[in-house]
């Protein structure tokens, strides 16, 4: 992902974030919030919850920025993993499970969101990619990446051996790499 604010390079942004400049935080938000919010919303499904998780994620990104190591990977990967983990922790917490059940019955937040899903311009590529991934491959990626399943949980849920979980993940990711080349 290329930063949208073209005035500031990623290196420059990282340097300023390491020094805890709050102006850098605003640029970080502008550059990445669309992608991060999308992933969070995909995981927690409800907009109100997504906003809380977004807040929590940015607090974590800001307070643990020292731990970010350019050598180990891209800034985007690091941030998206923080957001993913925060969101997955949220849906796995008891409170959330009880709360979301009652909410989904009353208001139709989820269906609203899903209808808005299709109109978003950012989503134009999703259907094409999904169409090229086979359903098994997409399912295994989504279960782990968005729903936080461990490999043994996937094996149990899909009633397939652990070895198959590994080979299927490899095949799915290879396909993704090919599609995005």
């Amino acid at each position, binding site marked *: 992902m290329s930063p949208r604010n073209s005035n500031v390079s990623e290196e420059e942004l990282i340097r300023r974030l390491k020094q805890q400049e709050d102006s850098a935080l605003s640029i970080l938000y502008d550059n990445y*919030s669309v992608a991060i*919010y*999308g992933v969070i*919303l995909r995981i927690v499904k409800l907009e109100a919850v997504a906003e809380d998780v977004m807040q929590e994620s*940015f607090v974590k990104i800001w*307070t643990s920025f020292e731990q970010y190591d350019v050598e180990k990977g891209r800034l985007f990967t690091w941030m998206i993993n923080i957001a993913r983990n925060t969101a997955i922790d949220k849906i796995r917490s008891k409170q959330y499970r009880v709360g979301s059940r009652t909410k989904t019955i009353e208001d139709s937040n989820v269906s609203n969101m899903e209808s*808005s899903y299709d109109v978003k311009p950012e989503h134009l590529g999703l259907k094409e990619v999904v169409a090229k991934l086979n359903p098994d491959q997409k399912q295994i990626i989504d279960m782990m990446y968005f729903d936080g399943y461990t490999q043994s949980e996937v094996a149990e849920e899909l009633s397939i051996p652990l070895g198959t*979980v590994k080979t299927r993940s490899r095949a799915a990711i290879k396909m993704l790499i090919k599609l995005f080349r």
Partner: protein
Amino acid sequence: MDIEAYISSGILDLYSLGAASPAERSEVEQMAKKYPEIQAELDRINVALDQYAELHAVTPPAHLKAKVLSAVIKKNPPISGHQPNVESDAKVIPFGKVDRGAGSTAFKWLIAASVTLLLISNGLSFYFYNNWKKSEDRLQLAELSQSQYAQNIERVQQKLNQNQKALALLSDPATQRVVLNGVAKSPQSKATVYWHRETSGVYLSVDNLPVPPTNQQYQLWALLDGKPIDAGVLNSAELTLAVQPMKAIAQAQAFAITLEPRGGSISPTLDQMYVMGTI
């Protein structure tokens, strides 16, 4: 190291998908450090997943930015807030100077007070530590005696069961009572065998036998057609206590007790016979 095989095992993919176990995670991190090809594949995987994530992008509501930024600032005020500015520096200096002149006695008092407090606090810590230690000891003692009581009760219960069985045996008409009288070696000795012919159960009550040396034990024998059959050794500790159960004997014409090395013998030491009785 077969790097191709490692990559195609799928472990890197699980790692990037967040589904690897903690052990696998640290393994992958070490491998990536060691082998540039593995790091390169990991990068490819992450880029692909980042792109996949981006496909799900949704523009957040406009009001969210202010909310997020203020939450971050509240949690962790920016560094500029920590740095003392010139004005507050100017205020700090005179405050220090005033203290240095007029406040030195007050300062001494403060030190004295804090030292006293420290001593009191140390004393209290010691006192409470000792109390705690004592309670701990007492608790251990109580636990010990409690477990001893429990053991005693169990022993008594066992004894009671035994005695009930023995009593049932003694009052059973099928039980035969065989009196074993002292032989020439020990004329005062006497014991009684209670033998149930139907169940083959054998119980022994010792009326009078000399206390055996600690390395020896009495052993009961059943005699059938002149051949001795081992009927078990007598528990020395319970020699005078009620009746003790012995090994089952199906057929016998006589019973005898000899003194044998501890644990019993395969055949009786005849010159060590103390009592004998025929049926």
